[in-house]
């Protein structure tokens, strides 16, 4: 792999982080009045047990981001904080730090999202490839229409329907949450089984709703590779149909699918955030929903930033893996 390709991709990743934190800093300040400061004031005025803490938090906020400091100095402070993943304290759960709460929720989201995306991508890709084969089983052709229709429906709507049908009516699966109440998440086989049981419905709504996208994409690529010379060559060598299909046709058609995966990650995350809200799944999506309801600005900023970082890392990894799979990329000067 060429060093300049790697440098370019890493540079793009850093650029995205810088952009995200810059937007986080300047947007609230565009309106003249800082809504973060206003929300802090409102939270303190509500009183309650954390009022003393809130006053300290305001004093701390003013000393770092108050009007006494020039804007560029505030900006540098903010960038430095973000680089250290310091998103301040949670406004609604003072004195817990935003990042600590995020670290608790992130594994839930990453696991759910990683597993479901991988499964949907694999199933969809194989299905799409099989569909272009003249001798494909007939039931696949009938499967195509419902799968494509499902792909048009937002993830979370499918989730609502699944809760009603499989959770509420049939009582096969729990209605909400990431584990039974009274359990503490831990690496114990019984508890893990319980967590998997709770994750089946949310996972199902993501998988069912996204298979169609991959099926359609793969089918398109496979159709366009059908007339290629290397397939003709493989066939005329007398290779078995299965070998031609798996080793020649699919392997080459996979590359565009991988690019599509990198591009689709953002949409998948956006969809999964809402699925978590519907299922009250203990990941960052639910955290985002609760902090929007509590107007917890620091928490919202932190979650948004961490999701952008996570997607950035995933895209970076795919970008780095890609030229290893497709040797044409690393030599092409762009």
């Amino acid at each position, binding site marked *: 792999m060429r060093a300049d390709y790697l440098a370019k991709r890493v540079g793009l990743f850093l650029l995205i982080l810088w952009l995200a934190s810059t937007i986080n800093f300047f947007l609230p300040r565009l309106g003249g009045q800082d809504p973060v400061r206003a929300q802090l004031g409102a939270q303190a005025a509500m009183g309650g047990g954390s009022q003393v803490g809130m006053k300290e938090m305001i004093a701390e906020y003013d000393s770092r981001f108050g009007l006494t400091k020039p804007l560029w100095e505030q900006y540098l402070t903010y960038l430095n904080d973000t680089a250290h993943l310091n998103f301040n304290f949670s406004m609604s759960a003072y004195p817990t730090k935003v990042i600590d709460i995020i670290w608790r929720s992130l594994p839930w989201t990453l696991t759910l999202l990683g597993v479901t995306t991988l499964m949907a991508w694999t199933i969809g890709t194989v299905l799409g490839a099989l569909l272009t084969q003249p001798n494909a089983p007939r039931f696949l052709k009938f499967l195509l229409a419902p799968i494509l229709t499902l*792909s048009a*429906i*937002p993830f979370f709507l499918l989730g609502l329907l699944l809760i009603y049908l499989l959770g*509420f009516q049939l009582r096969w699966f729990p209605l909400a949450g990431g584990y039974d109440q009274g359990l503490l998440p831990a690496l114990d086989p019984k508890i893990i089984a319980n967590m998997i049981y709770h994750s089946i419905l949310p996972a199902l709504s993501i998988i069912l709703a996204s298979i169609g996208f991959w099926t359609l994409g793969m089918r398109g690529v496979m159709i366009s590779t059908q007339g290629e010379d290397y397939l003709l060559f493989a066939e005329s060598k007398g290779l078995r149909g299965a070998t031609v299909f798996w080793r020649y046709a699919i392997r080459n058609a996979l590359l565009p699918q991988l690019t599509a995966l990198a591009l689709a990650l953002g949409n998948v995350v*956006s969809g999964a955030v*809402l699925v978590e809200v519907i299922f009250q799944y203990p990941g960052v999506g639910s955290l985002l929903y609760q902090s929007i309801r509590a107007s917890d600005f620091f928490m919202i900023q932190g979650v*948004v930033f961490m999701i*952008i970082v996570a997607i950035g890392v995933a*895209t970076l990894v795919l970008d780095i893996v890609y030229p290893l799979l497709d040797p044409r990329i690393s030599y092409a000067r762009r």
Partner: protein
Amino acid sequence: MANDTWRYMRRNPELIVGLCLLGVLLLFVAIGHAIVDLDKARPLSGRPLLPPSPSLPFGSDKQGRNLLAVMVIGTPQTLEIGVLAGLIGVTVGTMLALTSAFYRGTADAIIRGVVDVGLTIPGLMVLITLAMNVKGGLSIPQMTLVVAALAWLFPARVIRAQVLSARERSYIDIARLSGMPTPMIIIKEVLPNLMPFIVASLVGSVSAAVLASVGLEVLGLGSFDSLTIGMTLYWVIYYAAIINSWWWWWIPPIVIIIILFTGLFMIAVGLDEISNPRLRRRA
């Protein structure tokens, strides 16, 4: 001509089904406006949580809104957000794509860079950041603008690629050799040939914009007195209508959303067949 169109339409059933589905929605809204008292969509205009009955075909929600009236008002509002944001997105995207592909150079580098970076960032996250800085939830025009803020990125990329391939065609060379100025070439030669793609990406953008606005509303960033489908779903989740067996509350918005998205999807598939003859099924 009309006969040809009809023959083509019969070969492209997806387009017909899609248009019919959208037609059903519009018909529902039109008839609703004629027969339903829209004042009943206000909270406390009736008794709360009544199941459907002849006088109240869709029942009422927990705040005493007549849900039929809410759907009749909310459906066009949600559509309006999607269509306007989609139109803004595709118009801006097309203009940037044409500038980028025809003039190349610095403009191209900047536009391509912004689009590449912008598409790597999960859109909903940026929209949340924008929305949370608007006081008191997003009204419908604000929602349209926020959603439109990112709606141009994808059209810009897709259409630019098409323009790049279009400008290498020989009819463009001929236009250039006969002394046609570049803006004229773009308007008279390139745009008409790109129309199928532009319409296809408009359908995609509308669908993406509706999805984004519903998403923001479900997360609680919409205006609480707005009656859009997304806000109805927000209240459905807020009051846990599903596990409380208030089925009449959540079925209509879900059905409307499903009809809308399936309709747009079918139209997109149908248009794809027009602009990508390669995908055309072998008869």
